[in-house]
């Protein structure tokens, strides 16, 4: 018999948990790189060299300036006259550059050439210049739009951290334009409206929800075109056409609709171009038309990944005049999508956004003077250098000459190869010194093309290496870290699985003589539970299964309980029970009770499933909560009050089910009643107003928090001390069978029975007060589900406690775990961040505190899994079967192991399996279209569920160990010392 001691078990478990924690954090930091983003917006300080910043002063003056003054000031300090006055940004969603510019120097296919005659003619005669703009992954619309307007490549966590709002607060072109008083208009994809709420003068957002629609989405944009082009009250017009992306999603690149859609886009380009040409005559200033796409598409029309087809987006700059671009090679140039932002910023005379990693497209500034071109490069370098400084704190370039020109005649060019910091410093200094020298010799600049070219080359060397390094920093996932993280997770998972197997093998040795269920190798419910975990793991690979995970949990949980039901039927004997002995009758009663409580669980489970139509795809279907909301708030309030009253009644009657009616019980029942009445009173008084804005309401909630907290802590700490040591004849109902079946060693059993009673009371108290807390915190429609989950847990306890069931412990705990997860989804949660109840996170908090709100949010979201963990305390008390040999040995390790082994390790193991599996899935799916919208949010939920498991297990262990220590050690020593006084001693003479 391979036995494992309690200490070893604990150590192994702690080791596994620690490894898991390390692995998880390493993986998270590897997968979601947290890059230091600069907050705030660039101001006039971006026109000063980076090392000589006296921050604060400049920003102050910027903010106080009115937009027009600011614009002039920018023009003044930037020393570049803006080439254009108005900007039309035309976004064609999903247009691959290949359709317009061809691939690898080859012109595009004939069909596409013919589909866009006007654009092609513009390209041919040099009015337009086109680039392959390489987009960064994920090639999905929103991150790419952000990339285009800010020049930054964002991580996932910046999406996750502001799940509240999708608005984009980092520095970007639109914010800069609005600062200098530009009027902006947007027609098209409503992503822009979500990103920049309130920034547009006029807008008409279309949703990309109806992917099947390829016509109406674009007509809704184009219908405004004539009107907008005739107006002159805007400076920046954004047109976002979704139709081409939809065509791709339906039919792929070679869809029959593609050519006509391209022609439609060509017509739009033509219309804008002709209109802007006309505008040229009536002196409205020059308009630049920029045609971009946010991403490309694969052959099948999908996008999201990082293949060439998907990242090959287009950037097309179209001028009204002919002269601008020398069209030496219009088909070849490749830029990065992020380069659009600094180019536009410099062309329109605004500061480059702070987090930009793009590089100026030098061809675009060809019509400037040499001085201005160098100045543009310099500004871009300064901005990148500032960004580098935040990522590389060591980068300071102490010897950088501040302000003063370097006047030594021969500027030194040093070879640059060294550490990152030194390399960038050196490259930057090279360019800067050359530039300064050039400026100093401004008067004698007759034959200076060579000098000029070398400066440009030096700047470009710095810019490209800095940009490359920064973009790799943002997108590269350090593969070593990821592999290490996954390996650690798998190792801890294996350790935990091994522990479960070891203690599972051990249990039969304990109980072989009593239960012959252990003789049978495999029973259907055990097989099914393992199979269920397998199904969960498999289903994680499918994005729609993740979106609709609530179906899986409900289906599995119901099936498990149906199997329990089937098993309970096995022992039901309808005919014979009547004419057999009374013991047989009792047996029958028990199984009937068990069947009815199983039916109750299934029934409440079904209601719970119907309460919230969770998930993503079918949220619009009718459900009970929507129906209740329509019915009116008075019904909701009635249900709320009714469920609260029921929880109180059930909780207190549960306490008094214990047959020993001591005074302690009355006190505990009274304190529960008090907290319950506080919640009830809160519901009665504050039913109409929102709870978070009312002083009285806040006060009453805070009183409730205080009462609940204090009573819980008091009960847990004090109860083991004051619990009377009674003879086992009058102990709780749950202990009845045990004490009847084991007549020997009754004296030894006393502390164990008291322990069970203690845990029973604490468990009841835990779950009842947790439910009361949830009733207060959850949305008002969730009151009934909380009550139903409570009922389910109690009914499960009842089922498992009756001796008729011969499930193994791990089966029951897994069933409870499933119940908790099914309840989690039944309370309206899903795997998108949108369902987190943010409003509830401010209940009873008078001042804003991120920590407290986060805590409340966690409590609300993980209400049901936590309830499951708290109920495990009750479960331990109900199930604890300690055999006399162990008691006689007084081996506390063995006792604790029997009490805590499965209840702690099984949840840890299930969670570990799911966590490891999901981590691997996430790693495999990192280029999936939905990695940011489906898989990553789900991963955050998985991480939070892990935290929930840790907390839950900790609470269980702390409660049980504390009770045990007090009962077995402290009170004994206490009683020995007071033995002479004769109190309690008769009951405690145990050894």
């Amino acid at each position: 018999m391979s036995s494992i001691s309690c200490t070893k078990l604990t150590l192994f478990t702690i080791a596994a948990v620690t490894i898991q924690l390390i692995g998880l954090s390493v993986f998270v930091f590897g997968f979601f790189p947290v890059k230091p983003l600069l907050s705030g917006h660039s101001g006039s300080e971006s026109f000063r060299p980076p090392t000589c910043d006296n921050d604060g002063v400049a920003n102050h003056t910027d903010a106080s300036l009115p937009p027009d003054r600011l614009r002039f000031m920018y023009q003044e300090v930037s020393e570049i006259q803006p080439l254009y006055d108005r900007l039309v940004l035309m976004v064609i969603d999903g247009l691959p550059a290949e359709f317009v510019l061809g691939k690898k120097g080859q012109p595009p296919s004939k069909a596409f050439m013919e589909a866009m005659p006007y654009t092609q003619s513009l390209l041919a005669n040099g009015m337009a210049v086109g680039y392959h703009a390489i987009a960064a992954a994920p090639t999905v619309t929103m991150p790419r739009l952000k990339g285009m307007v800010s020049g930054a490549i964002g991580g996932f966590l910046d999406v996750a951290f502001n799940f509240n709002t999708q608005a984009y607060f980092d520095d970007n072109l639109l914010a800069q334009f609005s600062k200098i008083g530009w009027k902006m208009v947007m027609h098209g994809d409503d992503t822009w409206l979500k990103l920049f709420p309130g920034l547009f003068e006029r807008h008409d957002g279309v949703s990309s929800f109806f992917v099947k629609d390829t016509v109406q989405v674009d007509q809704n944009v184009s219908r405004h075109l004539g009107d907008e082009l005739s107006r002159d009250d805007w400076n920046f017009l954004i047109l976002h056409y979704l139709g081409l992306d939809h065509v791709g999603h339906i039919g792929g690149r070679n869809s029959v609709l593609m050519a006509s859609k391209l022609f439609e886009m060509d017509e739009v380009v033509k219309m804008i171009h002709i209109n802007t040409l006309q505008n040229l005559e009536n002196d409205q200033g020059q308009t630049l038309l920029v045609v971009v796409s946010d991403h490309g598409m694969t052959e099948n029309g999908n996008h999201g990944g990082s293949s060439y087809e998907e990242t090959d987006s287009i950037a097309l700059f179209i001028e009204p005049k002919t002269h601008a671009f020398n069209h030496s090679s219009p088909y070849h140039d490749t830029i990065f999508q992020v380069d659009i932002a600094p180019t536009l910023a410099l062309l329109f005379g605004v500061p480059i956004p702070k987090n930009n990693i793009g590089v100026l497209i030098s061809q675009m500034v060809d019509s400037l003077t040499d001085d201005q071109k160098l100045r543009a490069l310099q500004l871009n370098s300064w901005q990148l250098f500032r960004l580098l400084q935040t990522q590389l704190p060591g980068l300071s370039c102490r010897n950088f000459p501040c302000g003063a020109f370097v006047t030594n005649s021969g500027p030194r060019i040093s070879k640059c190869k060294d550490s990152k910091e030194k390399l960038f410093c050196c490259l930057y200094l090279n360019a800067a010194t050359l530039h300064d020298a050039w400026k100093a010799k401004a008067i004698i600049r007759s034959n200076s093309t060579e000098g000029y070219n070398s400066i440009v080359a030096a700047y470009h060397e710095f810019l490209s290496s800095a940009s490359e390094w920064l973009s790799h920093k943002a997108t590269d996932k350090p593969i070593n870290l990821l592999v290490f993280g996954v390996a650690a997770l798998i190792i801890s998972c294996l350790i935990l699985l091994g522990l479960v197997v070891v203690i599972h093998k051990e249990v039969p040795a304990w109980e072989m003589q009593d239960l012959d269920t252990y003789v049978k190798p495999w029973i259907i419910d055990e097989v099914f539970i393992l199979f269920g975990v397998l199904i969960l793991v498999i289903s994680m690979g499918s994005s729609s299964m993740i979106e609709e995970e609530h179906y899986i949990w409900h289906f599995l949980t119901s099936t498990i309980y149906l199997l329990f039901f089937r098993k309970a039927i096995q022992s039901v004997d309808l005919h014979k029970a009547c004419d057999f002995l009374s013991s047989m009758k009792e047996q029958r009663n028990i199984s009937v009770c068990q069947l009815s409580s199983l039916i109750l669980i299934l029934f409440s489970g079904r209601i719970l499933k119907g309460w919230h139509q969770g998930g993503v795809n079918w949220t619009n279907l009718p459900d009970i909560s929507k129906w209740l909301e329509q019915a009116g708030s008075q019904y909701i309030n009635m249900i709320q009050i009714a469920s609260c009253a029921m929880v109180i009644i059930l909780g207190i009657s549960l306490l008094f089910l214990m047959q020993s009616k001591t005074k302690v019980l009355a006190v505990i029942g009274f304190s529960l009643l008090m907290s319950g009445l506080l919640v009830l009173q809160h519901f009665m008084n504050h039913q109409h107003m929102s709870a978070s804005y009312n002083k009285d309401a806040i006060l009453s909630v805070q009183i409730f928090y205080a009462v609940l907290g204090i009573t819980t802590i008091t009960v847990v700490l004090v109860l083991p001390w004051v619990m009377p040591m009674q003879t086992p004849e009058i102990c709780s109902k749950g202990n009845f069978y045990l004490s009847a079946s084991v007549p020997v060693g009754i004296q030894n059993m006393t502390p164990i029975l008291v322990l069970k009673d203690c845990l029973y009371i604490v468990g009841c108290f835990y779950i009842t007060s947790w439910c009361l807390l949830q009733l207060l915190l959850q949305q008002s429609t969730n009151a009934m589900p909380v009550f139903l989950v409570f009922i389910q847990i109690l009914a499960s306890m009842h089922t498992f406690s009756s001796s008729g069931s011969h499930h193994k412990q791990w089966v029951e705990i897994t069933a409870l775990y499933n119940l908790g997860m099914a309840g989690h989804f039944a309370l309206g949660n899903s795997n998108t961040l949108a369902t987190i109840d943010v409003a509830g996170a401010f209940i009873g908090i008078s001042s804003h505190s991120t920590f407290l709100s986060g805590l409340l949010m966690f409590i609300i979201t993980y209400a049901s899994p936590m309830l499951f963990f708290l109920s495990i305390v009750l479960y331990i008390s109900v199930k604890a079967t300690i055999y006399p040999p162990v008691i006689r040995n007084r081996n506390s390790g063995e006792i604790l192991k029997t009490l805590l082994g499965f209840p702690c390790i099984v949840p840890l193991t299930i969670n570990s399996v799911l966590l490891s599996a999901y981590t691997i899935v996430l790693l495999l799916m990192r280029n999936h279209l939905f990695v940011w919208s489906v898989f990553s949010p789900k991963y955050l939920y998985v991480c939070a569920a892990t935290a929930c498991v840790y907390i839950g297990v900790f609470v269980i262990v702390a409660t049980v160990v504390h009770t045990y220590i007090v009962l077995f050690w402290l009170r004994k020593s206490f009683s020995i010392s007071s033995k002479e006084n004769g109190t309690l001693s008769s009951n405690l003479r145990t050894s």
Partner: protein
Amino acid sequence: MDRRKSSKETTSSKALTMVPSPPISASEAFIVNTLCALVLFFAFWIANTLYSIDLVTDPSLTLFFIWITELPTVTLLFSRYRQNRQRCTYLRAVGRGVLGVPVGALLNLLGAIALGAPVTSQYLPKTVNWALMMSLFTTVPASCVLGSSWTDWRRIFAQTKPNGSIEYLLCLPAHGAVIGAWFGAWPMPLDWERPWQEWPISVSYGAIAGYLVALIASLGFVLACGRPQHIKRE
């Protein structure tokens, strides 16, 4: 799913002697199963040719055809193998088979609803027809053969311990249909937007597939179980 008859299990139910149904020969079992399967296909054929519908376009009517054609077949066929022939006439067995239809349908209905079947009124005819079909797959044959003998029902359906060749014909197809239906529910939450993902279409397909597979499997069990008995008789 362990159908091993472990020798250690000596349940008291065996001690109570019932007159067992006569063993069914392999050829008879083959005929019964083939007829059941053929009638199933016949129902599909009727729906397809006469009414030009199938399970996807009109699930409730198709399911109705299936159970209405299966009903006479199953009751008439299985009543021939009833238990306690002395006390129970053929007609009575047919009668209790017909009686078993609504009862079994109710059980299947409750099971499906517990597992998440929709309860709104628009789904009601589909759900009821589906439940009636499941009832003919699962409980009706058993109610023809076993009547209301609780111990036998419990032995076959709760403990999965079929005893004798005819009980394999009762037990396996019933379990096959239920397990098939269970698996048939899995594609439903996927976002493929196919019409057959609706309740109860994929579940019905799963049930029928499971039923057919189990019919074949039960033949195998009858063969395996029939041979030693054959030898014994000789």
